[in-house]
Each structure stands twice: as C-alpha cells, then as structure tokens.
C-alpha cells in the first residue's frame, strides 16, 4: 500500500528564484481530502501534545474528511487565531508532525498544509464572520501589532472591549509584515487578519512610538488595561573587526527594505543593495528569509553557519526550498573579520572552520574554532542574521521588572506594573508566531478576568 504523504505543489525552483510569489501553492480539494484520509484519528492523539496551543488536530482533519470545512475551521479557531499564518510558518516538523504516529514508520500527516488549506478556504468562503459581543465599556491599549498584539486585540474585541493598537511602523503586522517575505507569507494574508480586526472595531494607530509619544504611565491612565507585544526586534551584531563596513547589514534591514518598503519591486522608492556575492551569517528562519530574498534579487547568495546542517534551527521546509533554489551552504564556518577597501566597502571576509564537539546541556553540540584553518573568501555584502533581542523603547521612564536577559518578567501574562500585561517575543526572546499568538490569547483572557 502506498501511504506516502501528498506532496504540496511548488513553483519550480528556477522559476521561483526570479519572483517573490508564494513558493507553495497549497493543497487543492482533492489533495487535502487525500492527505486527510491518511489520518488514523487516534483516540489518544500524540500530535496534539506537540502543538503549543493544543489544536484538536484529529477533529479538524475529520472535518476535512467529511467535507465540513466550516467545522474544521471552527475546531482550529478554538485554539488559534492565525491559522492561515501558522499553517505557513510554524515549525511543524518539530511540533505536531514530529509526534504523529504515522511518522514512526513512514511519513507524518502534513498537518501544517492541512491547517493552511482550511484557513485559506475560510478566507475564500468568509467563515470568519464573528459578531462581537455587546460592548462592556472597558478600554484596552495594545502596544505592537505583531501576532501577540493582533491576537490579544482580536479576542478582546470579540468579547466587547474597546481596543486600540499602537504601532510605531506605518503598517501593522510586526514581523509578519516587515520580516517574513512575500514568497513565504503573502502580505495579503496578513492584511486580511488586520482588516478583520478593524471590522471588529479595533482601532489601529500606526506611527506611534510608545515610550516617546505616550508612555506606559499615560496608557495606564487612559485605559483599563495595557498589553505589551513589542517583540524582540533589536538585531545582534558579532562585534568583529570590519562590521561597520558599508555593505554589512542586519537581516532585519535587508528584509525591511524588501518587505515593508517593497524594495523588490522595480518601481520601489526605497533602495536595496544588490551585491554580486553575499554571505548571510546564521542558520535560522531569518537567515533563510534573507538569503532567499537576495537570491531572488539576482545575488549569488550564501549561508555561512557555524554548526552543521543538522543543527540549522530554521524550519526544515525552508532549508529544503533554499537548497533547491541554489543557495550555497557554507557550514561549520565562521567569519572573524570583514575585509574592506579604503572606502569602507566590503571586499571579503576572513573565515575559520569550526569543529563540532559534544552535545551541551541544551542538547546542541558545541563548536570550537580550528585555529589552523584561517582563510579568506571574496564577497561584497555580508548580512548578519544572528538573532534579535527585545527592544524596550516602549518601557522608557517605566520601572517595569526585567530579567537578567532583559526580558519582561511576567506571572502568567501580568507584569510588575499595575494593569499592564505582556507576551510574545518581548517576554520570551525571539521565538515563534504560534507562541506569540498563544501569549496574546492568554493575556486577553487574563485581562478580561482582571477587569470583570
């Protein structure tokens, strides 16, 4: 019996590296039905344990099987507010799909693709017409419009709260808008999420840097509760010589110019550097997004990562797609210096090889430099994708409790400040969309409890 999973159809690799359109087409009805029928409907579903928000996975898949997509969507919606997004960007191979019984001997059910299918159908068929409850006469301010903020706002608005989102950028969506590229998460999907909040009566005030325009204390005074979903946007640099060279960028800068500012379009007004050869330093989703975006701009784009391929923290699917797109992976290598000419332009890097050691306490194998391996590579662009940390501009003039690592300290989602809640990357450090979404949900619940 052939029981392999239904492969999602993709744009051909050599075509898709010339455009920014979505890589995966998503299942059609037959494909979804076929994949759904592979599900064993376990009585004790292990997949659910792998889901950070415990979506009733077998139940929604059953909905697909029975042709009741509305029901499937309702099942997912009980646990997730952003299924069209999470279906596309969740690291399913580490979560639900990693636990699927079918995966033990064969291939796990493509839960992510099925989730995306249901969510896309819900958008097309407009299942999403929630009628907000009667107004409760309470006001909540949300700082930041990433997945945490959007979710918190949505749940509160549905329950009849007056919600205002403050966002410093000119467009809502957080990382979903400025970071994750169009070819992985079409901006029209994000916009639909934002629009549906507006329909629920949520007011979105862009261009407002909380901390400067209004402080948290102001918000505490003007609102019954405040939620901080300010993310972890501050890019890290390596601190190596030459890092201030003209063509050394953070991945955030490259991605912001391309996504938020539309820099990939010919007629865009925001310039974007297109070198001949670019090295993106790092191995996470951010690195993959940056390197694949540059490739699409015609740059010879490399990943340089200090561990091995097995350790790449990026979503597995993205790594596979990147390989197919011709991205060169220079693994077990690390730059120690960026070389420049007298005008501060990048001309290359000094690089060392890394040696993989034993697994540490966190399960990741450590690396050490091989001192005899120093060599140079030629390039004219270097992108740092080393991770990000919370940027606490919003907390200016407040004495909110922070951890040693600079993360907002919470109990549940409650911060040390009166009626101020927080969640998402600002609390956990750079993590995932689904966790930020969950934190937003939890905060909405706790805010309602505290105000009732």
């Amino acid at each position, binding site marked *: 019996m052939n029981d392999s999973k239904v492969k999602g159809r993709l744009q051909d690799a050599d075509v898709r590296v010339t455009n920014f359109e979505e890589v995966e087409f998503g299942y059609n009805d037959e494909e979804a039905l076929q994949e759904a029928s592979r599900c064993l409907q376990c009585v004790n579903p292990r997949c659910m344990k792998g889901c950070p928000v415990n979506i009733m996975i077998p139940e929604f898949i059953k909905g697909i099987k029975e042709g009741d997509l509305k029901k499937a969507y309702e099942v997912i919606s009980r646990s997730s507010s952003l299924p069209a997004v999470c279906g596309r960007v969740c690291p399913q191979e580490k979560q639900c799909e990693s636990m699927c019984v079918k995966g033990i001997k064969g291939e796990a059910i493509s839960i992510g693709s099925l989730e995306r299918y249901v969510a896309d159908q819900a958008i097309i068929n407009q299942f999403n017409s929630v009628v907000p409850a009667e107004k409760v006469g309470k006001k909540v301010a949300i700082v930041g419009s990433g997945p945490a903020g959007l979710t918190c706002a949505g749940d509160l608005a549905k329950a009849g709260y007056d919600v205002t989102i403050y966002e*410093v*950028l*000119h467009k809502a969506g957080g990382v979903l808008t*400025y970071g994750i590229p169009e070819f992985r998460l079409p901006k029209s999907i994000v916009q639909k999420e934002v629009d549906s909040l507006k329909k629920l009566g949520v007011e979105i*005030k*862009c*261009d*407002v*840097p909380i901390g*400067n*325009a*209004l*402080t948290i204390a102001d918000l505490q005074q003007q609102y019954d509760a405040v939620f901080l979903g300010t993310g972890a*946007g*501050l*890019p890290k*640099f390596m601190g190596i010589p030459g*890092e*201030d060279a*003209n*063509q050394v*960028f*953070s991945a*955030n*800068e490259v991605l*912001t*110019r391309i996504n*938020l*500012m*539309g820099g990939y379009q010919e007629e*865009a*007004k*925001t*310039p*974007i*550097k297109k070198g001949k050869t670019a090295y993106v330093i790092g191995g996470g989703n951010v690195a993959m997004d940056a390197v694949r975006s540059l490739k699409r701009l015609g740059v010879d784009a490399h990943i340089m990562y200090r561990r091995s391929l097995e350790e790449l923290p990026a979503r597995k699917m993205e790594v596979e797609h990147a390989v197919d797109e011709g991205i060169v992976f220079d693994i077990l290598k690390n730059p120690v210096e960026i070389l420049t000419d007298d*005008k*501060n332009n990048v001309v290359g890097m000094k690089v060392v090889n890394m040696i993989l050691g034993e697994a540490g306490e966190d399960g990741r194998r450590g690396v050490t430099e091989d001192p005899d391996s120093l060599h140079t590579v030629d390039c004219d662009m270097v992108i740092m994708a080393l991770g990000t940390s919370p*940027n606490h*501009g919003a907390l200016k003039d407040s004495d909110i409790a922070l951890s040693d690592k600079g993360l907002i300290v919470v109990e549940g989602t409650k911060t040390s400040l009166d009626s101020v809640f927080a969640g998402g990357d600002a609390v956990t450090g750079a993590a995932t969309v689904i966790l930020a979404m969950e934190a937003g949900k939890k905060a909405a619940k706790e805010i309602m409890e505290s105000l009732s």
Partner: protein
Amino acid sequence: MYKVVYNKKISSNSYEMLVEAPLVVEKCMPGQFVIVMAKEDSERIPLTIYDYDREKGLLWLIYQVIGASTEELTTVQQKIFSVSGPLGNANEICKDPDAYKGKRICYVAGGVGIAPVYPQVKYLQEHGFNVDVIYGSRSADLLLIRDKVEKVVSKIRYATDDGSFGTKGFVTDILASNIEDYDIVVAIGPVIMMKNVVELTKKYNIPTIVSMNPLMVDGSGMCGACRCEIDGKPKFACIHGPEFDGFKVNFDLALKRMSIYKEEEQEKWELMKKRLQGGKNHE
C-alpha cells in the same frame, strides 16, 4: 494620513512643511525627530522636529532636496501619508536645564542643521538661558529661518563660504576666535562640519554635543542601518541618539557610511526625473 497646512519653498533647495500631528507634538522635545513618508509607497525620511505648537497640534519641518525621495516630498499637498514620532532622545541640556545653569552655551549650525538647533535655543531661552549661535552655509541665500532664530538667541554670528553674508569662511573660524567664551558647544550640521568643530573643541577640552544623521529605515531600533561608532562601540542613532558626545564619535566612519546607497539613490533619482519629464511632455 495627516493634514498638511502648507509645504513651501524657503530657499533655492529647501522647503518648510507645516503638518497637523497632535500625537507627535504632545510630548515631543527639542532634539527629537520624526520619520515621514509622502505616500504609502514612499521611502521613510527622517526629519528633525524644528518647531511645534502643542495646543494646536502643529508640527513644523524643514527639508533640503537632496534626492528622489525629498524631491517627491515637495509634491505633497494637503495630505501626507505618514509622520511617525517623536523618535530618538531629547537634547540633554533641554532635558535637564537646571543641571546646566550658569554654563555659557554656544550652538554651531551648518546648513539645514539650523532646523534642529532652533527649537533647542528657543527652549533654552524660555528657560532663562542666553545662548549664542554661529550659523554657516555656502552662501547667503542658503541661510534659513534667520528671523525666527534671531528672536531667540543672545547673539548670532554668520559665516558663508563665499562671503556673501557675515564672515567669509567657516563656522569653525568664528568659533576658534571666541572659544574662550564658552563652556559647552552643541554642533549640528554636515558630518564634516561637526568633525571640524570637535577637532577644535577637543583641544580646549570644551564638552561638545553633536547630532548624527545617518541613514535610517524604521527609526525604532529594528534595522541597525543607523549605527554609528561611539567610543569604539556600535550605537543606533535612532534609539541611542541622535545626539552623542562629540569627543566619542567616529566621524570618518560616519562620512563613509553615508555613501552606502549613493549609486542606487542616483538611479532612483534619474528614473524619477525621467518620469516627471515624461509627465510634462504629456501635458
């Protein structure tokens, strides 16, 4: 969208814009800036907050036309897509004037650098300071907002490269001959001017504040485009600055980093000029 009261030419290459932006001016302080976008698809342009009226919710901006994006800004009428701010930190002296009581302060401005200088000098005058200003530009017609500045200073001296107004020469020439009169200098203008001012004040060990204007994208600390080297370490001008201790700034690096997108910007400008030209031909 924000209402634009006017957007008018005030010199051969500079414009003044008055915008209604109540949330920006409610708490803004001298030294802070905004990022504006002419239209939804425009580039984000950082501009200093040059004057404000909190009661009326009004914000004044000055900008120089230096490329495609500032050229596009000149076409704005009635509505502007985005004005985000206030961004960055307030000027240190304005933030805590009491700490500077009795200090003799000199502001040195170059070109459009007068725009950030004006609100500071005005603020300090309102707080009982007598502040001197040295203001320079290439020629007389490029000296901006003189009437307004002259009302709030104790003494103002001008320098022009061609001698068409005030002293012929540089602002540093004037500062050099009066350096004994000052305890603190604030220099805002082209990087090369700030560098020269600091070279001078360093010799006399006169603390000097400068305001950096590197490339920016978001202005909220998210991209790192604006990084400057301060005391050997990278700092983001948008969240750690824009003002820094002039003695600690690596000006040579800042000068080099300004040219990062020069070619790309030139291309965009050529393209835009062609488009504008094309438009005219159709008329």
